Each structure stands twice: as structure tokens, then as C-alpha cells.
């Protein structure tokens, strides 16, 4: 079974966001970049599937700069067999469509039976790439999945948490599955895995390798234009109520109702 896993190199969730002067971009100078946490579930899903089948190959795929190599190595250290870095100046500034187009072009050049993605990338939180990729590849997409099972008929049964219950979706392979927390416990890369990752193959695809017209991706093609970043207003200081306890309670209830309008 050939398994593709799409991962994104993102600032770790504890990064304090700083905006560059002018408000057009984020300053990541001191940020630590990691594999998007939801993509770790995707990598783990890929590895578990391969282990269960006893054969196959897990290829991790990302669109990004040379620095994204760190996340690819992490996935290789966890146990993925191969990695592909899609990197080209032309890809810069891509919106979700642009990224999905690059991934789809890469996926078409690789054999695959299933594609795992994280349910969304932390940071931009768009939750679009997985579905767009499936649409471009013309295969089913099952999103926000918390349980997985592959049947002999060559289909995947996925569990999804829906309001008040669980939905079970069956999709024919090949398919794109986006992974949600709860699907599995991503493994730590073992030390041997880390050493082995050094020797594993990482291919780099440029726009030309993927047959992509540079005008169809990147900033130029983005349907989504980022105008400005703004920090939320600083939180006002808390208020301390005075007086007797029952007076305070009455005042608190009044404030919650009339000012905060939460009750």
C-alpha cells in the first residue's frame, strides 16, 4: 500500500506572535518551527497502516522552504520511508488553493492509495487544503477523522465526531483523509529512527518538475489576499466588586446580564 502524508512546517503553538512593522507579515525570528500537531496524527496513521499491512511505503510531502526539511526529517525519524519537499520561489505566498495545487501535482507523480493530512494547519487554521487536494485529485475526502479502519474491499471506514454522536463514513480508495486529535497517539521518533532518517531519500520538486505554470500558484494566483495583521486589543484590567457578599453577587449577576450579556 502506498501512503502519502502531507505535513506542514509551522511555528509551535506556544509561539508569541509578533507582527512586522506595517502589519503585513508575522515576525518569526525567535519562533521554533515544528511539524503541525494534527499532521503528527496523519504521520502516525500512515505508519500504523503500513505496519498493519506489513508492506507498502509511507512518503511525506510538504510545500515550503528549505527550513521545512526539519519537519520532513522528523517524520522520517518517526518511520516514514521517503520525503518530498516541494520548494520553489514561485510557490511563495500561495493560499490554500495554491498549496493544494502543488500537492496535487506532486501526488500525481507518486503512486498512492491513500493520502493523510492533518485536519488543519495551526497558525492559519484554514482547514481547506485536505479537501481541496481531494477535489483536485478527483478522489473522496473524509475530514476531521477520529477513527480509521481499512476493509478488504479496498475502502476506508472513518469515524467522525458529529453533534451528539459519531458518524461512520465509508469511502473507496484512493481517498484523502484528514486527521483529528484522538485518532491515535503519535509516536516519538526513536534514536535509531533519527539516525536512520539521515540516510533516507528526500526529493525536491520545483515548479518545473511538477509541470506547474508559476502563474497558477503563489501570490499571483492567490484568490485570498491578506490585507493586514492586527493583535487583539489588550485585555482590560479585571474589576473587583466591593460591599457585602450578597450585594456583590447581585452586582455580579447584573453585570453579567447587562454588560457582558452572557446570561
Amino acid at each position, binding site marked *: 500500500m502506498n501512503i502519502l502524508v502531507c505535513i506542514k512546517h509551522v511555528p509551535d503553538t506556544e509561539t508569541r506572535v509578533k507582527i512586522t512593522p506595517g502589519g503585513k507579515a508575522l515576525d518569526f525570528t525567535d519562533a*521554533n518551527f515544528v511539524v503541525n500537531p494534527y499532521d*503528527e496524527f496523519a504521520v502516525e496513521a500512515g505508519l500504523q497502516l503500513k505496519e498493519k499491512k506489513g508492506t507498502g511505503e509511507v512518503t511525506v510531502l510538504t510545500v515550503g522552504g528549505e527550513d521545512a526539511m526539519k519537519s520532513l526529517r522528523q517524520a522520517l525519524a518517526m518511520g516514514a520511508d521517503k520525503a518530498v519537499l516541494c520548494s520553489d520561489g514561485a510557490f511563495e505566498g500561495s493560499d490554500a488553493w495554491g498549496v493544494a495545487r502543488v500537492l496535487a501535482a506532486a501526488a500525481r507523480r507518486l503512486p498512492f492509495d491513500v493520502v493523510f493530512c492533518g485536519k488543519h494547519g495551526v497558525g492559519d487554521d484554514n482547514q481547506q487544503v485536505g479537501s481541496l487536494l481531494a477535489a483536485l485529485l478527483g478522489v473522496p475526502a473524509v475530514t476531521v477523522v477520529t477513527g480509521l479502519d481499512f476493509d478488504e474491499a479496498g475502502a476506508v471506514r472513518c469515524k467522525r465526531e458529529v453533534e451528539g454522536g459519531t458518524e461512520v463514513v465509508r469511502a473507496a480508495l484512493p481517498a484523502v483523509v484528514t486527521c483529528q486529535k484522538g485518532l491515535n497517539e503519535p509516536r516519538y*521518533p526513536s*534514536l535509531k529512527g*533519527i*539516525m536512520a532518517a539521515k540516510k533516507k531519500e528526500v526529493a525536491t520538486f520545483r515548479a518545473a518538475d511538477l509541470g506547474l505554470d508559476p502563474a497558477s500558484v503563489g501570490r499571483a494566483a492567490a484568490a485570498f489576499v491578506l490585507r493586514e495583521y492586527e493583535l487583539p486589543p489588550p485585555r482590560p484590567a479585571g474589576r473587583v466588586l466591593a460591599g457585602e457578599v450578597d450585594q456583590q453577587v447581585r452586582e455580579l449577576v447584573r453585570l453579567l446580564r447587562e454588560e457582558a450579556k452572557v446570561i
Partner: protein
Amino acid sequence: MASKFKGVDYYRLDDLLTDEQKMVRETVRGWVDERVLPIIAKHYQEGTFPRHLVAEMAELGLFGATLPEEYGCAGLDSIAYGLINQELERGDSAVRSFASVQSALVMYPIFTYGSEAQKRRWLPKMAKGEAVGCFGLTEPDAGSDPGSMTTRAVRDGKDWVLNGAKMWITNGTIADVAVVWARSDGGFLGFLVEKGIPGFSAPEMKGKLSLRASVTSELVFEDARVPDSSRLPGAKGLAAPLSCLNQARYGIAWGGVGAAMACYDEALRYAKERVMFDGPIGRFQLVQDKLVRMLADITQGQLLVWRLGQMKDAGTLRHQQVSLAKMQCVAMAREAARNARDILGANGILDEYGAMRHMHNLESVYTYEGTHDIHKLVVGGDITGFEAFRAPVKPAGG
């Protein structure tokens, strides 16, 4: 998942590390945050070793991590190995001690002095955590001076017969195999003694107020008979056990840095949050003095062990240089733990915080693998040419 502990790196020493070294550290760091820190206070209080962690450490590949892949090990460089020790001791010295003994004091001598059959038999199993090892050198009356040991090995046909007692042996009671050092007519020898053979027992020592989450034992030999095939053929004289200790001390120096980092991190966070006299205690100069001293010591320690690692891999490291680092890093950690405990006030004596646990643990670390003062005298002897720890005994009243 991203780990919680963010490290202490005032001088961007991360820039000195390779990607693999950082990845190894992040792996162990995340594991310690998730698996060790939530449970360690309970084990410390109850005086029990968290044995379930052995399989997990093995799974990560922490045992014998610098040994080659053909024996089931990871083949890491010395700095990566050091970082493992740093992170484990950031959790608890007991966990680091377990790994040190398994790796540096048991797997290392088997690898270095063992026969091919001994290596094939033990190393893969020990890497997988399926066999636990211990190292028996110290005796009730032979501590800093192991050359005065009295445990004896006497040849009897194809066997050796062991008599004597070892004390203070980490992992003794839970070990499947003990590396035991004994004197014989032909000098000091090392043996691999298996658990359960007649005449060999390993009762646990009780009553420790330090390293409580580690198993410490006696090893007792009463006509314990082992075949000559269990002797380490390459180990001749005291140089062999001392070379093992040198490996372990290298890791301990890194461990000291880790324990100090844990204490500093805890104290800094506390100082920023704890409000006294209408504001955080971190604004007082006396508190800042303690924090800055800790940070300065940690930064120096980090540079020291990093350089030590480079020299180790280059093969230029001298054992006296390891002595200096063991002495220095553990002493600074001990100081950092005390200062952290102080900054935490009364909270500092609770097991909810790590400072006092580290403070107590570091008392053992200060003493074992060569006491602080012995290492000082080793370095003193090296720079002056006078070996002070073999000072002649003056007759009393003479």
C-alpha cells in the same frame, strides 16, 4: 507534540548542535515531560523505581545509545548521548542513574571488554530493556579507594568461585546481570554474574533520603560459582572498571546541567509569579542575584559539557578533564537546587515542585562515581604533579 519545557539557552548554544542532536534532545525532552514528571514525585515519596519506564526508554533507544547498530543500538555521537543524560536528569537523577548504569557501566564494559559471545548474548537484550544490568565495584569498606576491595575470585577448574560483598549498587536487586569486580591471584577481574545463581543474592538497601526513586542494593557472594566464560576476557586490572566510570561520569556531568536547568526554570517562573510586598519577588535584587548566578553557572556548564563531548568523539579526551566536568557540573547543580528551593519559600519543600527532590538527589550524585573531592584531587594531581589522594598515613602520636 511540542514539548512543554523550553530549555535554558542564554547563549544560543543550540546553534552548536546538529539537527540530529536537537531531534534526540526534543524526543527525550518530550518523553520526560509526558512520562516522568507527572509520576516521579509519587515514586520518590514511596521509594520505588518506576520500572514501567524501562521498556519505554528502550523503545526510544536510550540504552547503549552510542554503541553500534549491529548490537541493536543507535550509534549516536557523544553530544547526543550527553543530551539524553541532561534531559533524563532534568526529570530525576534516578531515571538518569538507571540509564547511566545500564549504558555506561554495563553495556559499555561488555562491549569493550567482553567476548563476542557475551556481546551477542547481552547487548541486544539490554538495548531492548529485556535485561537490566548493575555494576558492582564499591564495597562497605572500599569506596573512594576501590583498590582496597576484598571480594575475591578463586579459580576452581573451569569455574571461578566468588566470595565477598558489594554495597551501594544501583539497580542491584532488579538486575538480570551484574558486572562484578573482584581481586584474584592474577589481579583484578570482571565477571558477568547472572541473577539467581546459587550463592548470589542482592537485597535492596532501605532508608535512603536521596535518590529515592532508584533501587540501591547490596550484592552478596557466598561461594558463588561462575564459569570462566562469564569472565570479561579483555578486562585486566583496575583500569577496566575505571574506564567504565569515566563513561558514566561524562554522562553525569551532562545530567548535572539538566538538573540545574530544571531548578532554574522552576525558580524563574516562580519568581515572576509569586507576589510578596505588592509585587513579584523576581523584582528584588537578592532574588535576581540567585537567578543570575544559576543562569551563569548553567551556561558555563553547558559549554563545558559540549566541548567535552567534542573531545570525546575526537578521541582526545583525558580522564582528568572528565573529572573536572563531573565535579563542576554536579556542584553547580547542587547549588542551583538549593537556591531554587530557597526562592520557592515554603512551597520549595513540597513534592509538587522539583527543587527539593533534585537537591536531595544531587547529594548522591555529588558522592557517587568518585566524590567531588576525589575528582578535585585528580585534577589537582594532574596540574601540580602531586597525587594528594594517596597521602601517606602518619603513625598516630608519632
